[in-house]
């Protein structure tokens, strides 16, 4: 039993010892660049959402403040849902960072599955709820908006929502499918580890 792979082990070792490695790469710069690229990708959603919150705040609270209860509630819902989404993104980044590459394969796989399940939940029920509440907030602005804006503009604003919502739903479905596929793949891998 001990020596049944003897020859293969010898070839394997020889191949390894024959390999020549030179330190021609600037790992410090490359590691920093990779970390920065990862940070940009992680924080881009947060930056976009934060800019949206800022614009909504400036337009609907500071420059053209809504005075009716419905209008104020609408602005509150729109800003509130976006802030919740930003918090979820921050939490998600922290969760991703907590997965350490030096864990055992089994622990790493389990941690990744937990993270992916969380992402699936965020892309699914959480995002759908946020979009619905955001749209309710948007429609609550319309009665007061129509008092100051021409009718055609109010109709245009209301009519532009369904196509926008349709596109958004398609994107959400795509996102859920992608997350599901990744999650299933990790679950399959976990089963392979568990079957040992």
């Amino acid at each position, binding site marked *: 039993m001990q020596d049944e792979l003897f020859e*293969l082990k010898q070839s*394997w070792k020889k191949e390894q010892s024959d*390999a020549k490695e030179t*330190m021609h790469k600037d*790992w410090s710069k490359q590691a920093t660049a990779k970390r920065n690229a990862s940070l940009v990708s992680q924080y881009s959603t947060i930056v976009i959402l934060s800019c949206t919150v800022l614009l909504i705040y400036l337009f609907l609270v500071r420059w053209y403040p809504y005075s009716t209860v419905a209008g104020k509630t609408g602005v509150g819902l729109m800003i509130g849902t976006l802030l919740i989404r930003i918090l979820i993104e921050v939490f998600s980044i922290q969760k991703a960072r907590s997965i350490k*590459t*030096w*864990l*055992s*394969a089994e622990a790493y796989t389990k941690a990744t599955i937990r993270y992916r399940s969380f992402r699936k939940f965020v892309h699914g029920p959480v995002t759908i709820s946020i979009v619905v509440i955001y749209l309710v907030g948007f429609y609550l602005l319309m009665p007061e908006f129509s008092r100051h804006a021409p009718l055609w503009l109010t109709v245009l604003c209301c009519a532009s929502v369904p196509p926008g919502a349709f596109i958004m739903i398609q994107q959400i479905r795509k996102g859920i499918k992608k997350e599901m596929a990744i999650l299933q793949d990790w679950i399959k891998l976990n089963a392979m580890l568990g079957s040992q």
Partner: protein
Amino acid sequence: MSRQFSDLFDQLYREYAPMVKQVCTGFLNGDRALAEDLAHDVFINVWNALSKFRGEANYKTWIYRITVNSCLQYLRKPGMKAGLAPEQLENIRDQDTEATVKGKEQVSELYRAIGQLAEVDRLIIMMVLDELEYDQIASVMGVSEATLRVKIHRIKQRIKNILSHAG
């Protein structure tokens, strides 16, 4: 990162880069270009993790853990297929046959055989070939030594079958 870590990293790279590249090549069915890319990912992960090394395991086991997890993650990157198409494998074998001596050919055959195993099995058998102790392999994979022994027995049988059919 301090000079001390930088020197340590250089030392680890020199010592373990051939091992990491070999594992990456075996894991990616002998595709050396992809393996180079994956090994690069592994060492960036090593670099980023080095300041958090607490000495619970030796460096070899620690680097093996990072390598194994980087391999598992690599195949799940968007657009990354699990392994090569059979015709690509054939190309690799043909190039190796023409360009290398018998010993190299044996390793190429071995890469091809390893490539036919399930991805977890690929990683385990490469650690066996590298003569890691069973408790170290169990620690890298996060399974008990007893179950690992059973698994290794099955993988050895499968490898022998594949190689005997190839020969």
